[in-house]
């Protein structure tokens, strides 16, 4: 296994297989929390934080508990529960640690349980069988790197999209398409642009 694996993992999960625009994960916060650049960035930071930890924990849970016990079939419920617990724990810790951090991140953390990107990436890390490809612990490193890249990709489109939306507020859009519809169409055009990145790295 060479270092290029990590580079490819970050690059492809950030740009080529972008969580929002290519995999349709986390579309809801993408539309809901992108009206202002500030909140978009806050949400992205919270997602990055939780996504990386969730990838780490869910990977270990799967390979160190579910596989030895031969109960892989409870994957879905155990992943959602571990992620939900994680979110609660993280929020609690942030509450205790820092007022400032809570003000900027805490509010978003609570919204994350139902963010499908977190669960999606955790499940996908298992489906892609990193453990089988690289071995248990190198696979963990690749899984976490993939999650980090995905979170970077999420942040990137959140930021780009929020800036577009701030401009869109003042645009002359037909009444029926104002708000979410025109945002979706904008996202479609962004997705077209991102589709052009396919083929840079495998």
């Amino acid at each position, binding site marked *: 296994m060479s270092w290029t694996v990590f580079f490819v993992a970050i690059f492809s999960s950030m740009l080529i297989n972008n969580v929002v625009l290519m995999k349709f994960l986390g579309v*809801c*916060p993408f*539309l*809901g*929390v992108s*009206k202002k650049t500030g*909140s978009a960035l806050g949400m992205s930071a919270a997602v990055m934080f939780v996504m990386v930890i969730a990838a780490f924990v869910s990977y270990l849970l799967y390979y160190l*508990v*579910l596989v030895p*016990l*031969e*109960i892989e*079939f*409870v994957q879905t*419920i*155990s992943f959602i*529960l*571990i992620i*939900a*617990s*994680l979110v*609660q*724990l993280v*929020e*609690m810790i942030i*509450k*205790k640690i*820092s*007022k400032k951090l*809570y*003000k900027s991140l*805490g*509010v978003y953390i*609570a*919204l*994350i*349980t*139902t*963010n*499908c990107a977190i669960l999606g990436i955790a499940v996908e890390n298992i489906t892609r069988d990193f453990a089988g490809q690289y071995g248990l612990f190198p696979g963990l490193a690749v899984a976490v790197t993939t999650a980090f890249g995905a979170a970077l990709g999420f942040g990137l489109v959140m930021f780009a999209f929020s800036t577009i939306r701030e401009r869109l507020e003042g645009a002359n859009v037909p009444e029926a398409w104002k708000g979410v519809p025109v945002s979706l169409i904008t996202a479609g055009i962004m997705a077209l642009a991102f589709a052009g990145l396919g083929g840079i790295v495998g």
Partner: protein
Amino acid sequence: MMPAVIFVTVMVVLFLGTFMLNKNTPAPVDYKISAARCSACSHYGCALKQEEAEES
């Protein structure tokens, strides 16, 4: 059979535990989640938070 049932139960209890712990930890700042942030899927989290805000 036993491992599956025990494991799921443990997970549920773990979730409940963290949930209760978090609920019992007071927020350090007064905040209100704006309606804008409550759109789309975040709706469940919002409902929860708004309710908490109302209760307190």
